[in-house]
């Protein structure tokens, strides 16, 4: 490695062109190759934040992909992911600056998981594999480089979480229930990429359960812990990452819809208790349906509890990933086959 290259890496740090880790310097030749892989012209406008007078151009996304360490063979996936990230429903700038400290969670499913070599077993929610790490990092860097008003806006994440460096989950290529993205309107056999503004994952351990119901009740308790952000507004969502041992129990006893209904019934806390703790104001907004004396579930729409099958067999763990309370939409794109 030349001194010049190392100096360019240092220059990127000094210029504010970094997420805090060393980047591959976005040399023109590398960016051009990435643009070709993405299928865009350099100045093509891929997205916009009109209220900030910002246009997001292809060359900025290509440069970011290079800097994150992505390979050009990820091009079709990165194109779909870029389109999802700049979709106004994702609210890129809100995700960047919110006190909620959320990350852009990327979920990949379908044949592309095998094709690109995503890790989807051991440590699936934080895998040390190049596609997971670099594509997950790319999404956070787009959030950082395009969502911060050209560097002028201030991120207010109160505590944040490590996923703001990279947060990608790849689904098992073969699943017991239909693929994750079928919950977002895609056909089962396709490859798709989805983005959600998400808090960090909560691990759910249950080593001795012998039924799917017991596993789901444990998961319900995690969804409905008194600190979960969604209890007041209930606009948010939850991703339930079922690892194989738990998935086998749950899918044996439940259809996906039934599991969702079960969680809506069990993932509750007493409204009065939430008011006592200060999780809900004593004088709530009328449209938020706060009813004293009732139990409250932290998600309004059962369709926003999503299941994904991922992780390594042998362990009795699953995870719950709460979506940002300010995020009302899940954004997803099918990845065209090459």
């Amino acid at each position, binding site marked *: 490695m030349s001194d*010049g290259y190392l100096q*360019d890496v240092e*220059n*990127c740090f*000094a*210029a*504010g*062109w970094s997420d805090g880790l060393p980047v591959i*310097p*976005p*040399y*023109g030749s590398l*960016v051009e190759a990435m643009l070709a892989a993405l299928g865009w012209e350099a100045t093509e406008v891929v997205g916009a*934040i009109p*209220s*900030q*007078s*910002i*246009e*997001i*151009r292809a*060359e*900025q996304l*290509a*440069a*970011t992909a*290079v*800097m994150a360490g992505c390979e050009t063979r990820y091009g079709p996936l990165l194109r779909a992911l870029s389109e999802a990230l700049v979709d106004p429903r994702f*609210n890129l*700038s*809100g995700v960047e*600056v*919110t*006190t*909620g400290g959320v990350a852009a969670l990327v979920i990949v499913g379908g044949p592309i998981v095998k094709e690109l070599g995503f890790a989807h077993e051991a440590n699936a929610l934080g895998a040390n594999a190049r596609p997971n790490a670099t594509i997950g990092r790319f999404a956070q*860097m787009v959030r950082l*480089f*395009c969502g911060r*008003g*050209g*560097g*002028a*806006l*201030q*991120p*207010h*994440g109160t505590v944040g979480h490590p996923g703001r460096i990279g947060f990608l989950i790849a689904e098992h290529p073969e699943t017991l229930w239909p693929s994750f993205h079928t919950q977002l309107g895609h056909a089962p056999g396709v490859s798709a990429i989805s983005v959600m503004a998400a808090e960090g994952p909560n691990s759910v351990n249950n080593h001795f359960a012998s039924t799917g119901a017991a596993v789901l009740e444990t998961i319900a308790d995690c969804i409905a812990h008194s600190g979960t952000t969604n209890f007041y507004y209930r606009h948010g969502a939850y991703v339930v990452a079922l690892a194989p041992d738990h998935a086998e129990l749950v899918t044996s006893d439940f259809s996906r819809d039934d599991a969702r209904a079960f969680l809506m019934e069990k993932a509750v806390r007493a409204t009065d208790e939430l008011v006592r703790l*200060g999780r809900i*104001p004593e004088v709530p*907004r009328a449209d938020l349906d706060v009813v004293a004396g009732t139990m409250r579930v932290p998600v309004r729409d059962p369709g926003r509890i999503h299941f994904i099958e991922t992780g390594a067999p042998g362990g009795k763990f699953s995870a719950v990933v709460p979506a940002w309370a*300010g995020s*009302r939409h899940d954004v997803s794109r099918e990845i065209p086959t090459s």
Partner: protein
Amino acid sequence: MSIEALIPERRLASCGDLSCEFLVDPIARPTPAPFTVVFPRRRRVVLLDHRKPNSRAILARTGQLLRERGVDVPDVIEKAGAGTPMSDAILDQLSGEPGLVLCGVSDCGSCSASSSVDSIMLQKRGVAGFAVLTEPFQNQVERAMAYQRTDRDLPVLLLPHPMQNLTAAELEQRALLLADLAERLLAAIPT
């Protein structure tokens, strides 16, 4: 640190023995048209709420106080989400407004950034829109203005933090302060 110092570099070059090549800037930057900061032309105050806890209560009481002082205050307008700027429909509705528009009250990251953007969007339509923020978030307007070209700094109306868990007396204090701040901006109207 100044806001200017936070803005990432626009150009980086990599120089070898014989020549240099530019690295490609990954940062999406605002490219706004210049505008002139406008102030109210009528003793009228429009309140734009975003439904964060106690924002409505403070704005509603502020409106009541201003009415008692002879200011024309229509019903509070509500935008759909605190973490996003106002809709085009509300922006169109407020275009041509001769009075003062208060955008807030914002006491969080995304809502204070959005209220700052609301203020700028209104200003660009020639409306005297100003963000109402709490002290920890006071530099959001300055940050949102970093790429803007204007004739003067855009004022921001500041209230004490926090807004949640307030007693009735604390709510009253904030509403009184906001009414006084609004009056100061209205005082500049030529008679």
